[in-house]
């Protein structure tokens, strides 16, 4: 499913507009530990996290992630937004918890058996 369709379906708030909203999302990964995300996330995954600092942008860029969703309405600081604009990393926000939004995203994009 294309990222923009996921954003619409899950009513995610878009925090900055630089990046590829047409990207075909291939799953997601939920974690707050950066080394864990580096090791186990896959290209074009959506990363769901509580962390909002600049290093999140670096990890998302290095792993070619489709976007990052901040949970519990967590707000990144201006430096994080600036770096995301520079690096074309799409940042999204939800009022849901990590559990809640992970479940919704899973239901939306993972194949049913």
């Amino acid at each position, binding site marked *: 499913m294309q990222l923009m369709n996921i954003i619409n379906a899950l009513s995610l708030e878009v925090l900055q507009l630089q990046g590829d909203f047409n990207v075909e999302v291939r799953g997601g990964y939920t974690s707050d530990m950066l080394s864990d995300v580096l*090791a186990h996330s896959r290209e074009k995954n959506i990363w769901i996290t509580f962390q909002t600092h600049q290093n999140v942008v670096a990890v998302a860029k290095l792993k070619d992630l489709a976007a990052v969703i901040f949970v519990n309405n967590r707000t990144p600081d201006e430096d994080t937004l600036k770096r995301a604009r520079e*690096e074309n990393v799409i940042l999204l926000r939800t009022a849901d918890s990590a559990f809640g939004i992970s479940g919704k995203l899973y239901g939306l994009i993972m194949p049913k058996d």
Partner: protein
Amino acid sequence: MSGENVLSQSFEIIGGNFGRAGKASTTVKDILKELGIDPSIIRRTAIATYEAEMNVVMYAEKGEMTLRVTPEMVHLHLQDQGPGIPDIKLAMKEGYSTATPEMREMGFGAGMGLPNIKKNSDLFEISSEVGKGTRLEIVIYLNPKVKANP
């Protein structure tokens, strides 16, 4: 090491500077992309460089990362000035970390960095002198066949 250099570039890494952290690694990634290196090689290099860069930021005063790309390999050399690692075998163990509570709050300190580097490199060497600093050498071959017959 044989082979004509395609490119060689060094990056300074400043200890404790979490704001700038990751800049060296993202720049290396951009360079490799520009050179048309295979995406899977770029991805492995990105993991190794970021983990190595963050360790300098987290634990050392400063360091330097040198990237060399030859027709055969991506070669990374890191040298830092810092406390060094007293027990390298222990530091290499997944889950071992001396990260501070502040670092852990930021999502560092899983104790996965060094194991991640090792997993993603074809050759990995680490040496350290306590009170002086730590040195890493990382090789990722561009052609998977080279790995089988070094």
